[in-house]
């Protein structure tokens, strides 16, 4: 995988969206949540077999599954689960244990709390005497790389897993591998599963590599720094949105593996994405900008930052700059390291990949708004979700560009790859068999 995560501790969840998405994938090998989502996004019992709420949805009780053991043989008990959740949920929640249940008391009503617990970092873990973490998931950590060494981790099948032993005995995961090296690895039979950037999926399929794609779960978007003087003009922000040719980004740069986005949520989640058209309107964009603004832009171009390690992001940023130049908005693109250690320079615009981590529209939108620093409002009912999204789009503080799938290349031996619609892995279901017919693409 291209990202490298420092630890498998859910308490040290990386803030960067790409890293947290990677952490979620890796940690789901080792840990389980109380509740999970099936491949269609419906809630399913995991470590909790049932749950109930009080009338105001402030107090939730989760009854734990009997006979579950951590990978070191320690039985799962309500106090262990409560302690883990208390550390992850924070002081705003009061988590207690009964004989067979975990009780969570919130300060305000949380009608979608089970969906929240079924995604993100809300894993149940046990802290050993040496501070090592164990989980109840299908694998346990066999080897974890040193911080300054090669990013190779090893995971061994957990024979104690309550859901059954996984088919594969061991997984070797190499982190921090760029996409070209991953593509080479799958081509030369050195890997069974690799990540593929959207722009490489078609080429990989032409080379006979099996490819699988999720539904659109990433959003390329321009996030505007409203504190910058140049970006406080709402007309300029709207002109930027109208000038961008999203279809050509989706069709050419991302090689038809993306869809032009006028809204934040993809249609498969919200069902109303058609209410946010993604059409280009150069005439209106030009009309919105007075000549003085264009003149000012020529002498002082806007600065657009992108992740310097992301070749697709660079191509998209350059294309945005070309589109904006056409309406007289000059933009200077600049690559920037976006890991958690580096302080980001202020820029007028930032091209970001935002990750959709839940098939639930409210949760997905909350996560998206959180990741761009917007405070989510109440989003329980569909009309509230739509209103929140509409308000964000109409403010032009974030300009959606393209929704993109998560893509993988699989070796011919990999069988039963059944990833959820919203991406991620389910490696416990995968087994390796004799090579199947190569090539092809599946969802």
């Amino acid at each position, binding site marked *: 995988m291209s990202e490298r995560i420092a630890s498998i501790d859910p308490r040290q969840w990386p803030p960067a969206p790409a890293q947290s998405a990677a952490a979620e994938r890796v940690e789901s090998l080792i840990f389980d949540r109380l509740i999970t989502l099936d491949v269609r996004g419906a809630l399913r019992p995991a470590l909790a077999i049932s749950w109930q709420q009080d009338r105001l949805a402030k107090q939730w009780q989760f009854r734990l599954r009997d006979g579950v053991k951590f990978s070191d043989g320690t039985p799962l008990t309500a106090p262990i689960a409560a302690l883990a959740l208390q550390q992850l949920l924070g002081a705003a929640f009061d988590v207690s244990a009964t004989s067979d249940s975990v009780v969570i008391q919130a300060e305000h009503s949380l009608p979608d709390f089970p969906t929240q617990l079924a995604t993100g970092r809300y894993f149940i873990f046990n802290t050993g005497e040496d501070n090592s973490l164990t989980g109840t998931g299908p694998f346990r950590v066999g080897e974890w790389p040193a911080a300054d060494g090669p990013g190779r981790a090893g995971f061994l099948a957990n024979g104690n897993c309550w859901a059954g032993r996984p088919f594969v005995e061991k997984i070797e995961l190499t982190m921090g591998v760029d996409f070209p090296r991953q593509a080479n690895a799958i081509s030369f039979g050195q890997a069974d599963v690799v990540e593929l950037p959207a*722009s490489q999926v*078609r*080429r990989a399929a032409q080379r006979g590599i099996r490819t699988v794609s999720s539904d659109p779960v990433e959003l390329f978007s321009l996030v505007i720094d409203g504190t910058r003087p140049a970006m406080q003009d709402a007309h300029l922000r709207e002109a930027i949105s109208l000038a961008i*040719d999203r279809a*050509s980004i989706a*069709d*050419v*740069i991302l*090689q*038809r593996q993306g869809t032009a986005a006028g809204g934040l949520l993809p249609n498969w989640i919200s069902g109303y994405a058609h209410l946010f058209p993604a059409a280009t309107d150069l005439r209106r964009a030009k009309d919105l900008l007075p000549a003085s603004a264009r003149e000012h832009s020529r002498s002082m171009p806007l600065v657009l930052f992108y992740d310097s390690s992301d070749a697709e992001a660079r*191509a998209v940023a*350059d*294309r945005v*700059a*070309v589109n904006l130049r056409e309406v007289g908005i000059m933009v200077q*693109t600049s690559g920037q390291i976006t890991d958690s250690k580096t302080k980001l320079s202020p820029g007028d615009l930032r091209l970001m990949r935002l990750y959709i981590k839940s098939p639930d529209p409210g949760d997905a939108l909350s996560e998206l708004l959180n990741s761009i620093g917007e405070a989510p409002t109440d989003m329980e009912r569909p009309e509230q979700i739509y209103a929140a999204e509409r308000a964000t789009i109409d403010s032009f503080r974030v300009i959606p560009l393209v929704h993109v799938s998560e893509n993988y290349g699989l070796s011919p031996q990999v069988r039963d790859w059944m990833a959820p619609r919203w991406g991620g892995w389910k490696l416990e279901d995968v087994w390796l068999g004799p090579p199947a017919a190569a090539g092809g693409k599946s969802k």
Partner: protein
Amino acid sequence: MSFRTKLLVFFVTTIVAAVTLVAWGVSVYTRRAFEEFDRQRTDALVAQFRREYAQRGDEIAHRVQSIADSEATLRMAMDLNRPQADASQYYNDSRGIAQSQQLDFLDIVADDGTLISSSEWPARFGYKNVWVAEEPDWNSKGAFLRRVDTPDAVDLGMLAVRTIRVGEKRLFLIGGQRLDQNFLATLVLPEGMRTLMYRPS
């Protein structure tokens, strides 16, 4: 004035006049000879520069022709000639081809002038290069100078255009090298000759 003095003046005047005449004649002859030599040398140097420049143009045209003659390019042209052809898959191709032929610029342009792929400005795909579609026979033409837009500047390029015709449609290849100090430095010039380039901003 005595006869003796007159004779002296006459001889002196005659000698001075003769010396002046000879000196003037020698000077004129020498200057003309030098100017002729200088003109011949300059002509030789300019001719050598032009030969070198034309050779570079031929090299560029030859490299672009090599790209046009390649099987991959022919396949691309045939593919793009199909109804509802998808040009997007070639969006990234020009950079690798340009590197393999040591060209600074390479644009792959469709029959209607739409840019399919550009090595110097990949993000400009989809925009029109109208001028290239207006010339009916590029294959008989040599290299020429033209301004080339890049993301950061406008460069001067020595370009050559070649076309591949499949059916009714043409595929244009515009390839070239940047004409800058580095380009001038690679020209093989006679000793003592120096080329300077003036570029108005």
